[in-house]
């Protein structure tokens, strides 16, 4: 039986209590995307400054449980200043960490086995304990799904 310490690692509680990159960015030029977790009422709002293939700046707002808000904070710190391709790789890697293999439905379960290869998750690995609490996985992935949505939007607008 997994214990609370598996879920609420100290680094997670630290990000929850002192979230990084809180605030807003002027829209436009920044993109604003919102993500909701309808089951719990978690809400994540991201402001993304995407320019020349790089996530120049990220600001976050919203409210929700410690896992959703800590994951949002950790995500913002991880992708800020990163090339979009690296950010997307991180999204895939994080989802793999959460055991969500997007290719599963296409019968290609092998592809994401390697999503984590060569990706440095750093502090994000602290969120791995969430996997033992299946109902909380969507709290942890909310920020990442919202980021993906924002990057897709930016790509569409740019193209």
């Amino acid at each position, binding site marked *: 039986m997994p*214990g*609370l310490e598996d879920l*609420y690692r100290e680094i997670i*509680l630290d990000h929850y209590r002192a979230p990084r990159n809180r605030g807003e960015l002027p829209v436009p030029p920044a993109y604003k995307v919102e993500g909701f977790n309808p*089951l*719990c*009422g978690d809400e994540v709002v991201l402001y993304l400054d995407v320019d020349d293939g790089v996530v120049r700046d990220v600001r976050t707002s919203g*409210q929700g449980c*410690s896992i959703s808000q800590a994951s949002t904070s950790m995500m913002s710190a991880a992708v800020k200043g990163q090339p979009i391709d690296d950010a997307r790789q991180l999204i895939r890697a994080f989802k793999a960490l959460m055991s969500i293999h997007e290719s599963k439905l296409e019968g290609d379960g092998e592809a994401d086995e390697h999503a984590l290869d060569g990706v440095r998750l750093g502090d994000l690995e602290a969120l791995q304990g969430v996997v033992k609490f299946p109902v*909380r996985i969507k709290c942890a992935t909310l920020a990442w799904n919202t980021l993906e949505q924002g990057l897709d939007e930016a790509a569409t607008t740019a193209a």
Partner: protein
Amino acid sequence: MSFDVARVQADFPILKRQVHGKRLVYLDSASSSQKPVAVLDAMDRLYRESYANVHRGVYAISEEATAAYEGARARLAQFLGAGSPSEIVFTRNVTEAINLVAHSWARANLAAGDVIVLTELEHHANIVPWHILAAERGVEVRWVPLTEEFRLDTSGLSQLLDGAKLFAFSAASNVLGTMNDVPALVEAAHAAGALALVDAAQFAPHRRLDVGAWNADFVGITGHKMLGPTAIGALWARPELLEAMPPFLGGGEMIRDVRRDGFTPNDVPWKFEAGTMPIAEAVGLGAAIDYLEGIGMDAVAEHEIDLTAYALRALDDRFGDRITIYGPRSIEQRGATISFNFAGIHAHDISQVVDEHGVCVRAGHHCAKPLMQVLGVPATTRASMYVYNDEADVDALVEALAAAERFFAI
């Protein structure tokens, strides 16, 4: 205490188990109640001894199953104070009962511009069917607001009901614990020429329900919240309404005759019971009613009122200003459902930590998002009590909440 809670607890096998090495403290009965041995046995006995499809077989066990199924209908009719078993349509739950009314009665009787009145404390089950109808038919939906004391603000009710065809409201809130003055609300609906639909999901398990005294037009109940199994509930409606209403779902059982060019529906209530129904579940619900009547609904109410008073006091004493309780503070016209939040700690985090202590509470929006918007919160934690809960359960909740507070202390 108005009855021996320890004896009641002994009838619920699940309460003997442990979670995370702790005694199971089940405080989520507003979501779904636990089941006594009597219900499990009644269903098991049917499957072992008398199971067959109902109303079909010309053989002994089918006749026995039919008698058990229809016996459950009669038992429920009696429990609700209905005039006849034919006023009871079995459904899966209140959600299906309301959808039945929305599809059958409302689509036959409402047109663009007609008005339906709801309240801000409704469960999604009594909102979404009307949203669907509003989108399809151009029906207008109006909302009765709440007062500061988390009760319905009926000061503008007659204006809201002016020109309305239906007033659909809950007898008791699944979030706030608020119990509404059903006869007065029904009277207001009728005075405006509207029909009254009562969602009694959170009322029927806890208080004596008398459809005659309410004088409503439609009443929905759900079995799994009143010690019965899942997938069985009922719609009670006035006989003349049921007679006039077109069928809801089409299929077997609900027909008298089917031809290549059409069909003739069965009599009420079977007209609304398409396909093989949850037979064993109906029998289980009948056994649950027997069990509740064995305790006595007045004793159930008295027990819950005492326990609610104890719980509100205990939460206040221990947490003071740090806890916000969303619901009436007076015990009058209030159920044993208590919603609350702690400043700076999300409901899910509270729920996760108290689970570690064996305490089951619900965290989230409780399928009442419009109400959450009124309260100005994304979610609440909810503890809801029933016949098998006692003061020790409340004490366990308070200790677990104190542990959660310590865990998330900044």
